[in-house]
């Protein structure tokens, strides 16, 4: 009995599948005139923290990449190619990221990857992708060493991995940008610097410190926290007695929110400022009422205010994703589009068909891709960094972030 029903189900599935393929090819013939008949599927991998503390940012990345793919398919942007995304969860951990990278490389249909969120995760993935000549575009990594090598700070810039690109500006720009804003515009002269010792946090705090002291500002204290623990009382007490008029934090919002809350609760009413890692609504929620006046810098101009982004925001709303597009939505959308544009270039150069060495061709095409994206002009320099180096300062007002001013590093 059981066996018979199994056969029946298999048969039904097979029949269904055959019908569907038949449908597919018929539509295809009707729809495209390229003459090659078959419809190729190109998969764009997405790697981001879809669960855990940073999932608010990760899900925004996933949804935005998904939206890009949907629109490309709707417009039939690359003839004969249907795009699909495959989203993997790295839980913000380097080891998971590397496993995901291996998985994506193994799938021959994957021609590009969007992600990840964390610079430390990217470090573990770069070589895997580079060996497979699979292009990776991160919408969020800001650690300069990812593109310019470990000795970037001394001016010895070397691009280690040709397959790595990003649409986000680096911390070599972001930290100094925050320092200039604080010193010149906000009139803050005494800073207490705290970081979480991770690739992103420590790097950002380092570039901030360099510029702030160069401007003549005073670093009245430094501390490191363990983001896994939520007890920051020892550091908070040091902040209080240091006489600082602002705290700079290098790290992400799951620790930054409670840190700001604990600083305010200790009776020290000074703002906390951080980078794009704290620019999320969850920060405001975790930091509570005292967060009003806290600052963050984030890459690019506020997506909502750009005319080029109006359509993106409207489409995102229409697609009814459960989660907001968060800090990196626009950059993820642009990253996915950069891959789509590159696939189109590769297909066009090969008489409307996907070339045999598609990965290498797509990779080469990304390097030269230029288009008007959601976040402005999208293109990459010789290191794989975004040529668009705009940044924005945001301030907490009410229960959300408000853009204060945008600009490039002066």
């Amino acid at each position: 009995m059981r066996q018979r029903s199994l056969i029946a189900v298999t048969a039904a599935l097979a029949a269904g599948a055959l019908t569907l393929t038949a449908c597919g090819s018929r539509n295809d013939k009707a729809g495209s005139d390229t003459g090659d008949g078959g419809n190729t599927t190109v998969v764009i991998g997405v790697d981001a923290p879809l669960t855990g503390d940073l999932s608010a940012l990760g899900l925004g990345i996933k949804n935005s990449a998904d939206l890009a793919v949907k629109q490309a398919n709707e417009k039939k942007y690359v003839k004969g190619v249907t795009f699909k995304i495959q989203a993997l969860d790295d839980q913000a951990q380097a080891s998971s990221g590397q496993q995901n990278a291996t998985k994506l490389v193994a799938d021959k249909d994957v021609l590009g990857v969007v992600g990840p969120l964390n610079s430390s995760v990217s470090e573990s993935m770069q070589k895997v992708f580079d060996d497979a000549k699979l292009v990776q575009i991160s919408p969020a990594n800001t650690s300069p060493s990812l593109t310019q090598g470990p000795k970037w700070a001394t001016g010895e810039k070397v691009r280690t991995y040709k397959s790595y690109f990003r649409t986000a500006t680096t911390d070599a720009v972001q930290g100094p940008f925050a320092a200039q804003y604080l010193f010149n515009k906000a009139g803050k002269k005494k800073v207490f610097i705290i970081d979480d010792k991770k690739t992103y946090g420590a790097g950002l705090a380092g570039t901030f410190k360099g510029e702030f002291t160069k401007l003549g500002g005073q670093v009245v204290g430094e501390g490191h926290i363990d983001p896994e623990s939520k007890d920051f009382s020892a550091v908070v007490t040091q902040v209080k007695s240091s006489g600082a008029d602002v705290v700079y934090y290098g790290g992400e919002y799951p620790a930054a929110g409670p840190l700001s809350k604990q600083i305010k609760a200790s009776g020290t009413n000074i703002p906390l400022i951080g980078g794009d890692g704290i620019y999320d609504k969850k920060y405001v929620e975790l930091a509570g009422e005292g967060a009003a006046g806290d600052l963050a810098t984030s890459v690019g101009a506020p997506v909502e205010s750009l005319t080029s982004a109006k359509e993106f925001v409207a489409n995102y709303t229409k697609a009814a994703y459960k989660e907001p597009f968060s800090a990196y939505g626009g950059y993820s959308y642009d990253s996915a589009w950069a891959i789509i544009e590159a696939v189109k270039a590769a297909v066009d150069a090969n008489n409307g068909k996907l070339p045999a060495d598609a990965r290498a061709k797509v990779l080469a095409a990304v390097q030269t891709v230029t288009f008007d994206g959601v976040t402005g002009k999208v293109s990459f320099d010789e290191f794989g960094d975004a040529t668009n180096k705009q940044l924005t300062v945001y301030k907490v007002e009410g229960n959300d972030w408000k853009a204060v001013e945008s600009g490039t590093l002066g």
Partner: protein
Amino acid sequence: MHELPQQLVNGLLLGSMYGLVAIGYTMVYGIVQLINFAHGEIFMTGGFGALTVWLMLPGGTTMWIALPLMLIGAVIVATLIAVGAERFAYRPLRTAPRLAPLITAIGLSLALQQAVWAWYPDAKSSVVFPQIPGGPFNIGSVTIQTGDVFLLLAAPISMAFLGFFVKKTRTGRGMQATSQDPDTAKLMGINTDRIITVAFALGAVFAAVGAVAYGLKYGEVNFKMGFLLGLKAFTAAVLGGIGNIYGAMIGGLVLGLAETLTTAYVADIPGFQQLGGQSWGNTWAFVLLILVLLFRPQGLLGERVADRA
């Protein structure tokens, strides 16, 4: 060093939280020689129990009414899970080699974490916990936050209650007897199964109080909060002499103080700048543990016991 009084208070507060959770480890170990690694997660579920009660209360309820109800919610959830774990995960393995229940405990710890992660709405990242209103109090140069007041009161009251319970009640004396020799205790007519259940339940009550304190102090609860804190509390229990109730509290306080003071001052020692900061606090705490165990293997308040024949 002018901030020393504040740092001492910080350390005492952190230590009180460790102590509250350490009691659960110590009692269970004292009676069944089991290191209940799921205890940190029992603490965590207590936090979510309190949060659930808060979310069910109508908006605008004052903390004076809400807090006792949340505490009850936390205690109920944590106790049910602890007693359930004892009944269904540990009791069937009581005669098995000691490694078996230890592994079960680790498995249970992961299962509880993942269960909250998967099924509790919005618990995939930190969830905001309600706060006691009112600004911080200043006593001299020391600032105490309203959320800390709860912990400052709860820890000593809990300890006093536990001391009374163990010394003065029948069940408490039964616990002492069972912990000394379960087989003889059984022969003397003590229902050891019941005693063990009580030990688990009491441990859970303390963990639940600790979890509410955690939520009030840090303004959030999350599904991972039991892991690191549980590990620290276990360390505190060993430091104080595992099996000794007062030892757990002392061990917690010593650990909390050690962590806070090393975080604050190690970087000031010439040549040690790189070894300061909170990420090193954990390391120093464990260095302390190793030192204590080297020179006093039974822990601070533990007694040197001969192996049972």
